[in-house]
């Protein structure tokens, strides 16, 4: 019996169209647009100005607080402008626009492909270097990794869990990375284990990726304390709390953090980024992105520099099909629709997903028939129908009592609703309003 999380969950059609496509390197674009806020937390502070020459891997913006991350240039060239540009959030954010000239890397970056297994740095040095390299959670949440690695006083990490689940339909970026960079990921895991001072690490992989499970099972023999945990396919297994439940059988209580149950979760992509940062001195400025969609001619996985316009990726996959109705950054369940094709790729973009026109429109909303499906699929044990009703009647205090803030916005309720009710839209509004109320109460 394979492990999985116990409560709720749905099974959207997997559609992993690009699963057998090896990672290709996307040619450099003419210009890149690098937002200075690519992570959760405070935006970074700019270090460059118009006209400055930058190299690949040069720091161009500095972390603006504890929960923030450095931003590095992904190309070499001249800063042509600092302007507000639409990013994947749907709003205009300050961005550094760099004209690409050649491909000159910072001298200390090791460009070789050799595997470096020995970890010479101490835990503190690793933490410092991870923070310096601007690494954030690459699963999509973009939470700064060094924050997750610094364990608060009085708490102890007991187990490290690696997220190789990739439960979002369509996306295959992590899957390909696991197949092609197995050793590097495992060294990255060892580094993370050292930084956290834990001796156990689990890699959770869903059973729709048997090749990745087999490969890791073969490779982990050379690394102590790492174990592969095959998981039964179910969305949203990649959610932090769901993964901890599935792998370690621990439930993170409402309002608590994974570290409260002794667990730390990192994405496999993050582990790879950590490997490159520690062993190769390479800051985070490129990532693997899946370009896919039912109408896309040639779905593929690309290694892309941060700041590349989305259109370049789509061109590489065969161009925009005529009947495209929606372009989504990320997976179909939690991704964000893009306002135009010039939106730059950021550290958190795991995929570019093109929907045909007929797939991109929502169905008509009907009356709630009280079937209770939303209640039974909610992985957090909430009652989405009730929360929606409460938001509609503006019952903010009741919403707080019904744990609206526990919602992880996985979209299972809306996916499963037979009446196509916009449950998550309302719950999101409830969450943001309740957060505002809570904040004003503190003051």
């Amino acid at each position: 019996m394979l492990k999985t999380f116990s409560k709720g969950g749905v099974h959207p059609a997997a559609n992993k169209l690009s699963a057998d496509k090896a990672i290709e390197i996307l040619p450099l674009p003419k210009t890149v647009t690098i937002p200075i806020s690519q992570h959760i937390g405070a935006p970074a502070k700019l270090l460059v100005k118009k006209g400055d020459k930058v190299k690949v891997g040069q720091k161009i913006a500095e972390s603006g607080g504890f929960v923030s991350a450095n931003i590095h240039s992904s190309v070499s060239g001249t800063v042509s402008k600092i302007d507000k540009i639409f990013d994947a959030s749907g709003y205009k954010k300050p961005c550094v626009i760099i004209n690409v000239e050649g491909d000159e890397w910072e001298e200390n970056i090791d460009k070789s492909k050799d595997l470096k297994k020995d970890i010479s740095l101490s835990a503190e040095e690793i933490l410092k270097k991870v923070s310096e390299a601007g690494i954030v959670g690459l699963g999509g949440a973009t939470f700064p990794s060094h924050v997750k690695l610094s364990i608060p006083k009085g708490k102890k990490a007991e187990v490290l869990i690696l997220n190789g689940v990739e439960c979002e339909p369509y996306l295959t970026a992590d899957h390909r990375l696991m197949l092609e960079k197995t050793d590097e990921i495992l060294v990255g895991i060892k580094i993370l284990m050292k930084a956290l001072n834990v001796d156990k690490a689990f890699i959770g992989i869903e059973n729709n990726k048997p090749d990745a499970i087999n490969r890791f099972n073969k490779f982990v023999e050379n690394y102590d304390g790492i174990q592969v945990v095959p998981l039964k396919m179910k969305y949203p297994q990649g959610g932090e709390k769901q993964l901890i439940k599935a792998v370690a059988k621990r439930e993170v209580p409402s309002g608590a953090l994974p570290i409260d149950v002794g667990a730390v979760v990192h994405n496999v992509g993050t582990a790879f980024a950590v490997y490159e940062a520690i062993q190769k001195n390479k800051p985070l400025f490129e990532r693997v992105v899946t370009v896919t969609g039912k109408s896309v001619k040639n779905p593929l996985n690309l290694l892309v520099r941060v700041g590349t316009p989305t259109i370049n990726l789509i061109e590489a996959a065969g161009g925009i099909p005529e009947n495209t109705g929606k372009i989504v950054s990320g997976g179909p369940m939690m991704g964000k629709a893009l306002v135009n094709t010039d939106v730059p790729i950021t550290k958190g973009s795991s995929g570019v997903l093109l929907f045909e026109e007929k797939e991109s429109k929502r169905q008509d909303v009907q009356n709630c028939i009280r079937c209770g499906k939303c209640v039974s699929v909610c992985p957090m044990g909430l009652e989405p129908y009730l929360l929606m009703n409460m938001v509609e009647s503006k019952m903010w205090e009741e919403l707080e009592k019904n744990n609206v803030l526990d919602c992880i916005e996985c979209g299972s309720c809306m996916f499963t609703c037979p009446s196509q009710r916009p449950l998550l839209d309302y719950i999101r509004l409830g969450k943001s309003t309740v957060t505002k109320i809570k904040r004003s109460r503190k003051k």
Partner: protein
Amino acid sequence: MTILVTIITLVSIGVIAAVILFLVAQKFKVFENPKIDEVEEALPGANCGGCGFPGCRGMAEALVNADDISTLFCTVGGNETMAEVAKILGKEVTAKDPMVAVVRCNGNFEKRKRTNQYDGSATCVMAANLYSGDTACEYGCLGLGDCVKACNFDAIKIDKTTGLPVVNQDNCVACGACVEACPRNIIELRKKGPKDRRVFVSCVNKDKGALAMKACKSACIGCGKCAKVCPFGAITIENNLAYIDFEKCKLCRKCVAVCPTGAIHEVNFPAKKAVAKPEKKKQTEEIKEEINKTSENKLN
């Protein structure tokens, strides 16, 4: 005999129940100032919350309990109602200028090109939570009608030809529900003005001139022409956006004439006599010039 027993039983039950009711009523009696009822009677009873209290009764209580009621005002009833309330309570009120809601966005379909189509839940708050809207202007009206839903007085409607809300000033009581509802803070309560005439900047775009122009042809570009021409110092420019202080404005309309984009609106003035409009080409050139000037200024 049976009848007698029945009658006696029923009567005694009735008496006991009456006594209990009486005692309970005595015990839980709450003293309320009878004037509260009187004042509530005088208030319009719209329960709109425009005064800041939950319903007219809340307002009535506050009016009765407060020593100085000059800070309290019923926007629905206006000065007449307040005078009546003052008479009941024997307190003083100061007359206030009537206000009206004003929509500060004039980017209609023609002037503000749509860049995408929104297909989520049709409320402005949710659209604003998701992204900057279906035009390139991230400050302007989303046109999904949260203000219409908030209005209890049928005073605001979305004009289908422009996609913008229009206030019916006869119905508007300035309760502020739409101001509260708008996630973009586009609607403002302004002085209704003498003969209902008023002048205001119908834009809230804080972007630099060039960017604002790109998004909407009738955006305020913050050129400052209006501020220069205003003889009363009523216009201030902040964050590339002009704002007319309605307390200082004397409705001379000089600013309306000089605004290169037509972002300043005048309402309820009699039609002007044959003022030749500048040619369109000239107008756009003028705008470009202004933008260049302002951006140069900014860089210096």
